[in-house]
């Protein structure tokens, strides 16, 4: 293990570097996010993820936000285990009838001020599950949604871009 740690110590970081100014790079996005987030929440924004019926595709990509390549924590974004610690609910769908009550209770347990982000084509609309007896559909049919991030599933970079848009919206609301 020592060799490995030593190697890591001298290795270059794997985290994505800031690409050119015009191709909307990750670090650039992250910096913008941190600046706006700081104005609102001090230094950090805490996110609680809720799967309200997804196929797990969105969860895989949300998970990727925390790996060393995207490393969202460097921007002050972190995932919490409880809605009581969260500023933002990141909800994937389609919301199933069987998850409706759990989603409502999770929303109720999140302290104000709070924002809800619907993630994925199913969370934003209903995706391929439209018309089923078992789904309610988009997240905004159950709880108010502040931002939609589409994609099936959205790429991690799209998720980050979406979170910046949310901070913009929140800042506009606050001022």
């Amino acid at each position: 293990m020592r060799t490995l740690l030593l190697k890591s110590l001298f290795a270059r970081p794997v985290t994505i570097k800031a690409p050119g100014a015009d191709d909307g790079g990750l670090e650039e996005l992250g910096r913008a996010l941190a600046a706006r987030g700081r104005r609102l929440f001090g230094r950090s924004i805490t996110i609680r993820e809720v799967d309200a019926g997804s196929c797990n595709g969105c969860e895989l990509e949300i998970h990727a936000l925390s790996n060393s390549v995207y490393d969202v924590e460097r921007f002050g974004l972190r995932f919490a285990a409880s809605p009581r610690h969260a500023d933002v609910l990141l909800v994937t769908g389609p919301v199933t009838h069987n998850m409706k009550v759990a989603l409502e209770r999770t929303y109720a347990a999140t302290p104000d001020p709070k924002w809800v982000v619907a993630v994925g084509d199913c969370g934003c609309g209903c995706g391929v599950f439209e018309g089923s007896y078992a789904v309610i559909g988009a997240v905004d049919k159950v709880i108010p949604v502040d931002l939609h991030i589409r994609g099936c599933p959205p790429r991690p970079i799209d998720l980050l871009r979406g979170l910046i848009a949310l901070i913009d919206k929140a800042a506009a609301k606050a001022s």
Partner: protein
Amino acid sequence: MTAMDANPIAVILERLEAVAFHAPWRRFDVDAQTWTAIAKSLGDGGADLLSLWGDAGAVYMALRTPPADPCVISLAVTEGGFPSVGRFHPPAIRLERTVADLYGHRPADAPDQRAWLDHGQWALRAPLGARTPAPRRDPVDYGFLAVHGHGLHQIPVGPVHAGIIEPGHFRFTANGETVARLEERLGYVHKGIDGLLTDVDLAKAARVVARVSGDSTVALNFAFACAVEAAHGISAPPRATVLRGVMAELERIANHLGDIGAVCNDAAFALIHAHCGIFRERVLAASDRAFGHRLMMDGIVPGGVAHDIAADGGTAIVAALDDIVPRFEEIVALYDDTPSLQDRTCATGFVAPDLVNRWAAGGHVGRASGRNFDSRRDLAYPPYRGLGFAVPLYTAGDVDARVRVRIDEIRASIRMVKDWLAALPDGPVLAPIPQASEAREGIAVTEAFRGDVLVWLRLTANGKVARCHVRDASWFQWPLLEAAIENNIVADFPLCNKSFNCSYSGHDL
């Protein structure tokens, strides 16, 4: 073959005539008496239950009856019911409860008559059967099994879990720190997939099947495509077949990498998690470059693949894999050299060989407990036919063995992908789907990273999907997780759970 080594169920079916246009394996319409005889034989270990599902007015079972080919049997429902298979063969119990919930066909004399996927939230009873209006119930209203004893307490967990994972409810009954019983309650992400796969066109059905479980999207699409092709008696072009293999193995590599890291992370060993996360990301980025989607969703379609591999796709994949291999071996060596980590994984979450064999548990769950089955080899389909790859087999049955199966599979899959890409056949990647003049049925099994997935379907004469059933590997793994955690401490549940990594969505449908 002598009478001695013939499969008892194959012997029962020998005197029956198979229905027409069911491929590649045969389907038999049976009476209630034969159905029951087969159920008894299943309970005696005569065959593996591959799946059990409902349709309008009928129930179906798919069986693996070695040395004979697998088969499907069907029974017309009489007086709203059918003889329970679960009373002889417990792996059928949850599947039967599902048939009762969705179609209203009651399994007669079933040992467990509680609703399973129906949480009383649909305002409908038997949504794919009689569709009778029903008042909504309190979702908490569920009769968990009683546990008696001194000093026991319960820990309810979920449906919303602490991590970024799918929802489900776990009811632990513990004595101090030791788990006396875990009972699962699933069905929270039930999206009505069986209904969405009834009377629908082929392209829409393929998109729904791809989203039965996002982490196995390639394997699911693969099975769906093979089932359609079997029904029509066609095969995908050679180039498409190899590209399917590349996608399926990349999906396996990516998922296993993620899970090995996650298991170690649940033992608070974050270093391996960090490295595996980087490796996984490399594989997803290469998949994106080659096939235009990080998870390769909708990449495999009936007749072949949706798009040819990108011009520089093969190079990107090989570069990513070559980059990963030596570093992955360093991580494996680290796992081997860290007793404090193995202290958590070894002898934790033991699953007995008898259980994996009875439940016919696929994937790492089966192969870590000595069940020598891999559908790529044992129900071989292209491009795996005649490939001669090693299937890892361990007998310890613990978290460590499940991690080791995954490590070995990553190595084997990397070799496979590189070999295929080095000799990729030229030619078209999509064969036309012919027009049939009659209804046809097809079935296929493919090996997802967590085990075998099954797709059965009936196509109408005009090529629409009349009915399609998807069975994820998780169906026969979730019940074993309840056994794995017994007598372990509560704190080891995340390790056990992650070493299985069952799908909620793939199970809840």
